[in-house]
């Protein structure tokens, strides 16, 4: 005769196994949560968009390993907008109406983000985006920026730069502002002029060039002629390197020089870029890498970026902002406990979210929170944060020529 206690024990084990099995089956049978986005996988913006693709793949993989969202696996549908904002608009329409994705994630680059924002607004979808350059244009109440520029970067970013320079061993007295007319750069340079004036710096040169300029020789010659203590270069992408090369050709080394949005890899590797300054929200050193998950992400990114053929595998602004965007979306869905866009937006808007950039809030103008941009500098062939000192790499201080 079988003892009653044994029967009860066996029944309990069987019931437990059934419960686990049914839970697993339920998760297996539930369709995945589909998140749709576009990226500029081809065209002029492809180099940077590839960074966002690698980051998105890493994040979704990690998320699914953690059990996904709301007990469901996550599938990321990414389409190629060919670096064309008009195509991005069409593809976001498709994602919402034909693919019927559950959630949206932003594309790369300001123009495409604006297009996606229009579609998101039309269908009342939450849009978290990576590196949107002109906060004043973000009017939709359910868009959330992952790049912690603050609502008025045209003032706050130059203020941070000039504060850093004022604390340097050789504070500049004169400034040359030279800038591309690329939209997300130009207003920052105009802001720099205003801030410099208020701080008592004498402007010895102001020049603008059209994006796509081919000859930087005369610009370099004019900077050399003006002899500024500090050059603010409103450059995006390769423009900074092109100007540095032109300056080198006439044997000119700027005393102190700042580049708004340089191509990070080519600039840090260029021997001409010694002591070049720029802005960052994340670099591969403490305290940034002390944020939960940051060190693991950095290691994974190195591996995946190398596999994807990205020449510079370090995590900086683009990769960090991209990772942050996914963190914001995940926090929103978990916080809301549903896929309802309005509930997700309400949660994000009213909560501070922990990200690898730090704690982000979204209750300011255009849903922007604090400006968390720090000053970084090329030192020994790599970018290190130098200001403010609580974010500086160990032993790093702002160097001057």
């Amino acid at each position: 005769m079988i003892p009653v206690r044994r029967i009860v024990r066996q029944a309990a084990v069987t019931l437990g196994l059934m419960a686990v099995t049914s839970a697993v089956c339920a998760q297996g049978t539930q369709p995945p949560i589909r998140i749709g986005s576009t990226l500029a996988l081809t065209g002029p913006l492809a180099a940077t968009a590839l960074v966002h693709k690698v980051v998105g793949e890493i994040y979704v993989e990690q998320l699914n390993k953690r059990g996904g969202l709301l007990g469901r696996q996550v599938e990321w549908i990414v389409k190629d907008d060919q670096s064309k904002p008009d195509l991005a608009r069409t593809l976001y329409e498709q994602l919402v109406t034909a693919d019927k994705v559950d959630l949206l994630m932003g594309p790369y680059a300001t123009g495409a983000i604006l297009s996606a924002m229009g579609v998101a607004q039309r269908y009342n979808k939450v849009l978290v985006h990576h590196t949107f350059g002109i906060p004043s244009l973000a009017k939709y109440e359910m868009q959330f920026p992952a790049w912690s520029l603050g609502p008025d970067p045209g003032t706050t970013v130059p203020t941070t730069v000039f504060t850093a320079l004022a604390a340097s061993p050789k504070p500049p007295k004169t400034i040359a502002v030279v800038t591309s007319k690329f939209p997300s750069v130009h207003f920052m340079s105009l802001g720099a002029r205003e801030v410099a004036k208020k701080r008592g710096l004498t402007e010895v040169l102001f020049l603008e060039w059209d994006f796509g300029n081919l000859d930087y020789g005369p610009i370099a010659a004019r900077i050399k002629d003006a002899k500024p203590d500090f050059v603010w270069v409103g450059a995006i992408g390769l423009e900074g390197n092109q100007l540095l090369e032109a300056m080198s050709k006439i044997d000119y080394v700027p005393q102190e020089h700042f580049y708004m949005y340089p191509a990070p890899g080519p600039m840090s590797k260029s021997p001409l870029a010694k002591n070049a300054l720029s802005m960052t929200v994340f670099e591969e050193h403490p305290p940034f890498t002390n944020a939960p998950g940051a060190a693991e992400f950095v290691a994974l990114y190195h591996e995946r970026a190398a596999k994807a053929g990205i020449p510079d595998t370090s995590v900086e602004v683009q990769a960090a902002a991209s990772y942050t965007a996914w963190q914001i979306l995940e926090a929103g869905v978990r916080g809301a406990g549903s896929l309802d866009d309005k509930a997700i937006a309400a949660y994000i808007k009213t909560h501070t979210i922990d990200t690898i950039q730090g704690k982000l809030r979204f209750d300011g103008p255009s849903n922007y929170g604090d400006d968390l941009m720090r000053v970084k500098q090329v030192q020994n062939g790599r970018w290190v944060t130098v200001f403010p000192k609580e974010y500086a790499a160990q032993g790093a201080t702002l160097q001057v020529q």
Partner: protein
Amino acid sequence: MTLPGPALIAQSALSGVFIGSLYGLLGLGVGLSWGLLHIINLAHFGFAFLAAYVCYQLASVGGMDPLLTLALIVPAFFALGVAVQWLLARFAVSPLNSLLATFGLTAIIEAGIQGVWTADFRKLESAYASEKFRVGALFVPVPELITLSLALALCFGIWAAMRYTDLGRALRALAEDAPVAAAFGVNRRGHELILAGVCGALAGVAGVCLALGFTLTPSQIYAWVGVVFAAVMLGGLGSALGPLVAGIVIGVSEALTMAFASPSWAPMVSFTLLIGLLLVRPGRT
């Protein structure tokens, strides 16, 4: 407004001469193709960038001297030029359609470059890259000087060939009146293939110059189209020396605009010159 000093003006003008020589070198192939073959070859820019990437690959990975890569690039791009011309002739593509067909080809080349080298920036680090010397107050960078020398040599060489050789005379006759030239025994198809090959080779040379002086990215292909077309039209279709002269005029004008006024006004220069020429001499192109 303070006027720039003589050193700044001279340095800017020199910079304009150098960039203008590259406009001219790129324009030489485009102009010959347009004027003599009646093919508006947008793919010339794609070929030039493809050659630049090949030069980058051979020099960076293969360890070749960038100038020695010309020994491989020139024949390869000659063959490429011949192949494209053969295709265009095979389908009797009209001048307007050639513009569309070669635009498509350029997009394919751009995608191919991106597939092989990615859209990331590529910079050829060569022994020449940082070389420069002084002439008085002027700094003369060696890569740009190489470009200028090659542009001068090729433009004058082709000008002389067009003027003094049977091949050149035959090509000019074909451009003038193909049926009559053929009646005099000129092999139209063969001559056209040779000229297309030469244009392809010129794109190869321009590509090496691009690799020597510029950081490469596939989308840069299109940055050159407008100003080079302006140089070609100002210089005259089919002319060997015209695009170089026009390119240098544009380059120097742009550079002086940057020196005296604002760099953002410079792009207006080439097209203002072009519109001015078309108004003054409407039959020029």
